[in-house]
């Protein structure tokens, strides 16, 4: 550069070559991707940026909110009346159950105490409103208006009046992100009400769900209702999740293909209930002491 003791004119100083810069930034992006997808270690930085962007996000939500208000204002009286009629009928339907529930609960408590069973604790819950669905087209997530400030933590279960809709996957200070049960990466431990068969329910995309890894001859019928089994210690037991709509038993595969539809209004925008964490399950029993493994030589002899 300074062979003859002269600097090049500043016009030619353009920093590193484009290819070098490309390689640098690509490496940086790939590093981010791997750290986030594989090791999940970028949550803290994400929280920080999200906190800084919160006012902007609320501001961006304003036009949507305004259009909602306008739409609501213009929604016709007929819709309201219809909704009212449905609600009244629903109320009549459930009155009977509601009136008897208190009595049944007391009775249940007594019986459980008699049986010395573990009491099903009631958990604290919090009403939240779904603000909007996240713009990420690859996942099914919604944003609700309560965050860590209101006591929401990661992993809490979100239900509506019909059943489970998802789970809090990222709690920010003011908002939290709920992954719907129809998301492909979301799994819910369930059991079939009719026969108590346990399984795990996965999102299948496009608003559907799928029961994986059930044998082709498993006792599953169309119309079976799936409720949470509570075995994971995160979901409370007995919450309705989905209904079986199709069972394909193809003998060429080891497993049946069982498609389900969510019971709750998963793709609707409404008020939801974020359930607090239940009591932690007792720790899993320790692994039995491993016996000395037979060496390979022995096995070969057999």
């Amino acid at each position: 550069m300074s062979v003859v003791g002269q600097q090049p004119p500043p016009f030619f100083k353009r920093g590193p070559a484009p290819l070098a810069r490309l390689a640098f930034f690509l490496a940086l992006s790939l590093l981010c991707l791997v750290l986030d997808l594989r090791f999940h270690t970028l949550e803290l930085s994400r929280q920080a940026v999200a906190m800084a962007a919160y006012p902007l996000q609320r501001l961006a939500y304003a036009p949507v909110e305004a259009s909602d208000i306008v739409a609501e204002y213009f929604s016709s009286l007929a819709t309201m009346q219809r909704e009212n009629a449905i609600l009244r009928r629903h109320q009549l339907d459930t009155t009977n159950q509601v009136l008897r529930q208190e009595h049944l609960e007391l009775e249940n408590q007594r019986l459980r105490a008699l049986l010395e069973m573990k009491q099903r604790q009631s958990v604290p819950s919090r009403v939240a409103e779904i603000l909007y669905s996240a713009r990420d087209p690859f996942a099914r997530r919604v944003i609700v208006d309560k965050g860590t400030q209101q006591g929401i933590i990661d992993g809490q279960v979100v239900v509506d009046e019909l059943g489970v809709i998802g789970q809090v996957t990222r709690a920010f200070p003011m908002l939290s992100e709920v992954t719907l049960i129809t998301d492909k990466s979301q799994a819910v431990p369930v059991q079939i009400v009719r026969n108590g068969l346990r399984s795990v329910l996965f999102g299948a995309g496009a608003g559907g769900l799928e029961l994986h890894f059930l044998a082709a001859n498993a006792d599953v019928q169309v119309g079976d209702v799936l409720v949470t089994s509570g075995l994971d210690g995160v979901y409370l037991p007995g919450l309705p999740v989905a209904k079986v709509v199709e069972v394909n038993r193809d003998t060429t595969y080891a497993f049946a293909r069982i498609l389900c539809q969510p019971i709750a209004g998963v793709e609707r925008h409404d008020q939801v209930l974020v359930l607090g964490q239940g009591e932690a399950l007792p720790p899993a029993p320790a692994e039995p002491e491993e016996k000395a493994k037979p060496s390979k030589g022995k096995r070969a002899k057999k």
Partner: protein
Amino acid sequence: MIQPTHSSNRILLPVRGWFIFLTLFVALFLNMIPVGRLPGLPDFVALTLAFWCVREPFKVGMGAAFLLGIAMDVANASVMGQHSLAYVLLGFAASGLSRRILWFPLSQQALHILPLLLGAQLVMLATRMIGGAEFPGVLYFFSSLAASLLWYPLTYLLLLPQFQSMEKDDNRPI
């Protein structure tokens, strides 16, 4: 033989740094508006970034693309690095093709921008599919089409401050 010509011979004022920053910020804001899963909505950040990379390749480049990508990843609640990877590649291609693209009239510039934006979307699709996400449907790619249709109005909008004349003249229309 028809040769493309650089038909616009209008001499523009130099661009101001704060204006570039402002437009990118506004684009980020537009991208943050939660419209849910409405397909075919253009990615304003990618479009504005491509515009400035083409127009001012020495001012806006891969560094800005990376930062915008990280901001988009957080705003969109997607995987960290998904947008930044796509935007960095977009920035590289747009700045590299800048001299060529500017030679064409606006409609053909839009035709150049379309594959760049589609490429960025394909990169995002590939990263997420490898990560095990679901396929969002073919409608997902309509957003690039919509964005490249916006190239014409966007050029006029973003170059508006540079169309001003050096001497202030109140009787001049623009």
